[in-house]
C-alpha cells in the first residue's frame, strides 16, 4: 500500500461541473411554486425601535406575507452561543446573541426588521419600500475605548455596559523580564475591519414536504450538520426530518460558518408556514451588513529584549471589537493571543484582552480569525527591536526561533480549542533559510536596494515568520462505500467551498483501495449522506475530515481483503489491490473486480453466518487530541512611489510547512489565494464607518478587492514537517497565506521609505500612507 496518489498533483475532479456551468449553487435551486424573500434592514446603527408599519407592504399585489418580530410569537428567540468561553481563570464573558428580527432596539446597520415574502424578489423589494419604520436614534457605540468609559451609550442595556469579555493568560514573570531588559519596545497597533467578501453572497432555500413531513434546506453554510440539528430543535422536528444541503459554495472564508443567521432561522420557518418553497438570496449590499465580519483590534504591546536580541518577554493589552453580538465567543481574541507568540521562544508572556460590544455588524472569524493581529504585533515589535538594537531583522528572528528539538513545546496557555497551546513540530530556521535564499535577501540588501535607491527608486523588503494553529477538533467523520459498479463513494460531513476536497479525499482513498481517484466520488455537505460532524473552518478539512476518510478507507480495505481472501481462496497477505480489483500475488488471473466483490458482500440466502456485516463499507471518525502548528515565512519586495503614495509589489515569496501534503497543486492554490486576501487586508480592503455607525462603503465600488493587477504571482517553497498528532501527518493550510501578509507588507513599506515612517496600523492605503509621510516629514 505504498502511496501513489498522496502528494500527487491530481487535477481536480470537481472542475468539469464548475467550468461548464452545471454545478448546483444555492441560487440555482428553482422549485415549483417557489416564493422569494427580502429583508427590511435598519438604516440606523443604534436606536429604539418604535414601530414597523407593514400594512401597505402586506396590501401590495404579489406579496404573500410580511412578518415583524411581533409576528413571530414563540419562535422569536436569540440565537445559540456557538462557542462558550474557555476555562481560563478569572475570565469574564457576557453572552448576547443575535435575534431573528429586531424588536425594541436596533443594534447595527443592516439588522433585519421585517421579512417580506412575495411572488418574485423584484416584488418583495417593492414591498420593502412600502414599509415605514420609526426608530429613535441613540448615539452609536463605535470607539472601543470610549465604549468602556463611564456614561457611554450601551449596546445591550441588560448588561449595563459594553464589556463582552475579558481574559488574561500569562506565563513566566513579565515584570521581572522587563526589569532586566536591555530595551523595551512599546507601541500601539491597530488592525481594522474587513469583509470576507466571498463572490457568492449567502442564500437559503427551504422546502417543506407536508406528505413526507420532511424539510429540505439548501444553505450556503460551511457547517450543514449543526444547522440541521439546530433547525430540528427550533422547528420541533426530528433530526431525520431535516435535510440540510450545502451544495457548491461560492467561497466561504469564515462567515458562512456562523450558524443561525436570522435568515437561516426564518426562511425554513416561512416555508413551513406558507406551505411553499421560499428562497432568499443575499444581495451584495446586504452582504456588507448581514454577513459577519472581522478584525478591529487595538493592541498596546511591549517587547522586552536582551542586548543580543533575545526575547525576554511580551506584554500585550488589547481591545477586540465583537460588533453588536458575540455568538462566536472568544475564538478570535484567543487566536490573537496565542498566535502572537509565533515560532519564537517567549519565556514570559502577559496578555489580556477586552472584548467590546459596538454598534457594528457581528464579528466572527474571517480567514485567519484573529491570527493576523498576533503576527502583526509580534513581527512589528521584532522589526522595531532590531532597528533599536542595530540588528538585522532576519538575525533577530533566527536568534529567537524554537529549535527543532524543542517539540512538543508547551506555551502554557490555552488555545481556542480549549486545549493547551502545545506546538507539535516545526523547523522554523530552515523555513527562514529557504525564504532568505529564495528572495535573495543578502543580495537585495547589499546590492540591489542601494543601487535602486541611488537611482531614486524606493524599494523595500519585508520578511516575517508565522505560526498557524490549525486542524482543531472536535471531530469529523466519513463513510466509504464500494458500490457494485466499482465506484467508491465517500461521504463526509464537512462542506466544501472550493478547497478541493472532492479531489484530496479521493486521493486518500485511492491509495488505500488501489484505484484511480477519478473512480472515487466524494459527497460533502449533505446531511442525508452523512450526519455527524461540525464543519469546515480553522484550516481543518484535510486534517480532521481527511484522517477520518483515510481511516474509513483502511477499514474498507480490511473488509475487501477478508472477503477476497475467502472468494479467491488465498491468504490476505498474498492479495494485491490494484486498478480497482484484487488479485493473488504472482497469479493475476486469480482476481476479482471490487464491484463484483461488493455484490458478493451483500450475501444472499445461505450466505450469512453469525457476525456477517454486509457491504464493503465503513465509517470512521477522527478527533485530534489538539490542534497542530503549521508555520511559514513570507517575504516580499515592494516599490513605493513617494509622490503618489502608490505601492507596487515586485516579488512575493512564501515558504510554508503544512506537514504532509496531499495535493501540492491544491495547497499552493490555497496559499496563493490566501496571499491575495492578505494583500487585500494590507492595502485595499477596509470597512469605513461614519461616527454614527454607518458603513460608508457597502459596495464593490468602494470596498476594494484586489484584482489580477494587484496580486503578484507567489513564488512558493515547501518544507515538510509532518504532524505527530494524526496518522497522515497533515497540518492545515487554508488560512496560512492570509495571516502574515500585512506584517510583511508593513515592514517592506517602511524599508522602502528608509525609516521615515512607522507602520503601526493595518490596512494601509495610499491616502493613509500620504498622511503618515506628511507626519513623518513634519
Amino acid at each position, binding site marked *: 500500500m505504498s502511496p501513489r496518489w498522496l502528494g500527487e498533483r491530481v487535477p481536480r475532479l470537481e472542475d468539469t461541473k464548475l467550468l461548464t456551468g452545471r454545478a448546483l449553487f444555492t441560487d440555482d435551486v428553482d422549485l415549483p411554486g417557489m416564493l422569494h424573500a427580502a429583508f427590511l434592514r435598519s438604516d440606523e446603527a443604534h436606536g429604539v425601535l418604535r414601530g414597523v408599519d407593514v400594512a401597505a407592504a402586506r396590501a401590495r399585489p404579489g406579496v404573500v406575507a410580511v412578518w415583524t418580530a411581533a409576528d413571530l410569537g414563540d419562535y422569536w428567540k436569540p440565537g445559540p452561543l456557538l462557542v462558550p468561553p474557555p476555562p481560563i481563570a478569572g475570565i469574564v464573558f457576557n453572552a448576547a446573541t443575535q435575534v431573528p428580527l429586531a424588536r425594541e432596539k436596533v443594534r447595527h446597520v443592516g439588522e433585519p426588521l421585517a421579512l417580506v415574502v412575495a411572488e418574485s424578489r423584484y416584488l418583495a423589494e417593492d414591498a420593502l419600500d412600502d414599509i415605514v419604520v420609526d426608530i429613535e436614534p441613540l448615539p452609536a457605540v463605535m470607539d472601543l475605548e470610549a465604549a468602556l468609559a463611564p456614561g457611554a451609550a450601551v449596546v445591550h442595556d441588560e448588561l449595563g455596559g459594553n464589556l463582552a469579555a475579558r481574559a488574561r493568560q500569562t506565563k513566566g514573570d513579565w515584570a521581572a523580564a522587563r526589569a532586566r531588559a536591555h530595551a523595551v519596545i512599546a507601541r500601539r497597533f491597530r488592525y481594522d475591519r474587513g469583509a470576507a467578501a466571498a463572490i457568492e453572497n449567502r442564500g437559503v432555500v427551504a422546502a417543506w414536504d407536508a406528505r413526507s413531513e420532511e424539510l429540505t434546506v439548501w444553505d450556503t453554510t460551511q457547517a450543514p450538520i449543526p444547522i440541521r440539528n439546530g433547525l430540528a430543535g427550533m422547528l420541533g422536528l426530528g433530526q431525520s426530518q431535516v435535510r440540510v444541503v450545502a451544495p457548491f459554495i461560492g467561497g466561504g472564508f469564515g462567515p458562512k460558518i456562523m450558524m443561525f443567521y436570522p435568515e437561516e432561522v426564518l426562511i425554513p420557518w416561512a416555508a413551513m408556514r406558507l406551505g411553499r418553497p421560499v428562497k432568499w438570496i443575499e*444581495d451584495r449590499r446586504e452582504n456588507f451588513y448581514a454577513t459577519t465580519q472581522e478584525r478591529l483590534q487595538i493592541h498596546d504591546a511591549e517587547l522586552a529584549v536582551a542586548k543580543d536580541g533575545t526575547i525576554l518577554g511580551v506584554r500585550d493589552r488589547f481591545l477586540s471589537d465583537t460588533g453588536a453580538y458575540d455568538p462566536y465567543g472568544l475564538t478570535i481574541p484567543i487566536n490573537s493571543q496565542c498566535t502572537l507568540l509565533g515560532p519564537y521562544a517567549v519565556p514570559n508572556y502577559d496578555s489580556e484582552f477586552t472584548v467590546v460590544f459596538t454598534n457594528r455588524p457581528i464579528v466572527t472569524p474571517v480567514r485567519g480569525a484573529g491570527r493576523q493581529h498576533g503576527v502583526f504585533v509580534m513581527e512589528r515589535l521584532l522589526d522595531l527591536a532590531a532597528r533599536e538594537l542595530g540588528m538585522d531583522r532576519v538575525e533577530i528572528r533566527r536568534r529567537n526561533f524554537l529549535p527543532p528539538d524543542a517539540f512538543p513545546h508547551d506555551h502554557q496557555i490555552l488555545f481556542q480549542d480549549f486545549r493547551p497551546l502545545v506546538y507539535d513540530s516545526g523547523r522554523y530556521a530552515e523555513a527562514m533559510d529557504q525564504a532568505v535564499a529564495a528572495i535573495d535577501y543578502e543580495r537585495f540588501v547589499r546590492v540591489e536596494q542601494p543601487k535602486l535607491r541611488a537611482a531614486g527608486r524606493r524599494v523595500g523588503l519585508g520578511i516575517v515568520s508565522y505560526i498557524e494553529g490549525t486542524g482543531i477538533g472536535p471531530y469529523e467523520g466519513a463513510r466509504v462505500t464500494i458500490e457494485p459498479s466499482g465506484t467508491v463513494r465517500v461521504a463526509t460531513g464537512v462542506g466544501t467551498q472550493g478547497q478541493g476536497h472532492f479531489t484530496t479525499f479521493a486521493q486518500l482513498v485511492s491509495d488505500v483501495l488501489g484505484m484511480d481517484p477519478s473512480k472515487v466520488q466524494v459527497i460533502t455537505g449533505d446531511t442525508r449522506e452523512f450526519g455527524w460532524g461540525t464543519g469546515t473552518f480553522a484550516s481543518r478539512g484535510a486534517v480532521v475530515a481527511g484522517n477520518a476518510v483515510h481511516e474509513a478507507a483502511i477499514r474498507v480495505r480490511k473488509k475487501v481483503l477478508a472477503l477476497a481472501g475467502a472468494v479467491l481462496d488465498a491468504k490476505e497477505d498474498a492479495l494485491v489491490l490494484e486498478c480497482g480489483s484484487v488479485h493473488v500475488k504472482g497469479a493475476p488471473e486469480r482476481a476479482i473486480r471490487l464491484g463484483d466483490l461488493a455484490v458478493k458482500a451483500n450475501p444472499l440466502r445461505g450466505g450469512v453466518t453469525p457476525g456477517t456485516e454486509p457491504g464493503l463499507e465503513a465509517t470512521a471518525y477522527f478527533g485530534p487530541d489538539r490542534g497542530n502548528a503549521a508555520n511559514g515565512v513570507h517575504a516580499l519586495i515592494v516599490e513605493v512611489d513617494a509622490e*503618489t*503614495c*502608490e505601492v507596487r509589489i515586485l516579488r512575493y515569496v512564501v515558504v510554508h510547512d503544512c506537514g504532509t501534503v496531499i495535493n501540492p497543486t491544491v495547497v499552493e492554490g490555497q496559499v496563493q489565494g490566501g496571499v491575495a486576501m492578505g494583500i487585500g487586508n494590507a492595502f485595499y480592503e477596509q470597512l469605513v464607518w461614519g461616527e454614527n455607525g454607518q458603513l460608508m462603503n457597502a459596495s464593490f*465600488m468602494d470596498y476594494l478587492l484586489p484584482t489580477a*493587477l*494587484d496580486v503578484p504571482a507567489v513564488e512558493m517553497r515547501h518544507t515538510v514537517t509532518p504532524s505527530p498528532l494524526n496518522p497522515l501527518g497533515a497540518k492545515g493550510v487554508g488560512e496560512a497565506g492570509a495571516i502574515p501578509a500585512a506584517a510583511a507588507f508593513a515592514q517592506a513599506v517602511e524599508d522602502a521609505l528608509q525609516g521615515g515612517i512607522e507602520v503601526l496600523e493595518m490596512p494601509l492605503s*495610499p491616502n493613509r500612507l500620504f498622511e503618515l509621510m506628511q507626519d513623518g516629514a513634519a
Partner: protein
Amino acid sequence: MKPAAFEYLRPGSVDEALELLERHGADAKPLAGGQSLVPAMNFRLAQPAVLVDLNGVADLAGIAAADGGLRIGAMTRQRAVERSAFAAERAPLLAETLPFIAHPQIRNRGTVGGSLAHADPAAELPAVMVAAQARLLLRRRGGERRVEAERFFTGLFATALEPGELLTAVELPAMAPRTGWAFAEVSRRHGDYALVGVACLVTLDGRGRCASARVALLSVGEGPVLAPSVAAALAGAAPTPEAVRAAAEEVDADVDPPSDIHASAAYRRRLARVLTRRALTRAFDRAASR
C-alpha cells in the same frame, strides 16, 4: 438589488427619441450604455418612470472625419473608439485615455455620449473633451446647437442639456502641428474611479516654446476642471523640467477637490500637482517630436 418598475420605450430614430423625451418630460431618462444608470437603478437610487432606450437608434453611432478632426456619434461604444485606428490618429489623447475607463466589459457597452451626458466629476471623457476643446451637438425637436465642452459641463452631474434635448455627437477639432498629449490618473485599482486624473494637450511654437497648454482634471471639483493657471504659467515659456514643475504647482489654484474615504482633499491636491507635472512632461516630449 433589483430595479423598480419602469416603462420601457425603444425608439428607432433620433426624431422618435426626441418626441418620446418631449412627451414624457422629466419622467423620462434616456438609456445609453447604462453602465452608470443601471447600477444606480439596481440600488434603487435611480427610479426613472420611463426609460427611452437609445440602443436601437442606429444613426447615433459612428466615427467619422469632421473638419480635419473627428466626429463621434453619442451612442458609439467606448470600445469602438478604442479599436478605431482612425480615432487614434485624429484624437490620440482620447485613444490614450480610453483604456483607463473601467474595464473592457464596461466599455463594450458604455457609450461616449452617455458618459458625457452623465457628467460624473470622476469620469475621464468629460476632462478629455474639455482639454481637446470639443464641441457637443445637442438636438431637440426642430433644432440643433453646438456647445463647447467647457460650457457643456455646468456643475455636479449637471450639463447644458435642456429638457427634451439629446446629445447626439461630439466633435473633436483637428490638432495643431507640434501638439503633444498625455493622460494620467491615479486610481485605487485599475478601472476604479480615479482619485485624480489629468488630460492635457500642449502645442509648441516654432521656437519650441509653449504656444498653448490645455490641462483638464477630473475628480477635483464638481465636473471636469480646466486649469488656466497652469496654462498661464506655461504661456510662452520653454518647457524645461523646472518650468513644467513650477507650472504644475499652479494647478493648486484651479482645483477644489472633495474628500472621500479614499482620498482627502489634501492628498488629491498632491496628486493633482504630481500628475499635472507628469502628464505635461510627457505631452511636451511628444509635441517636440512631432
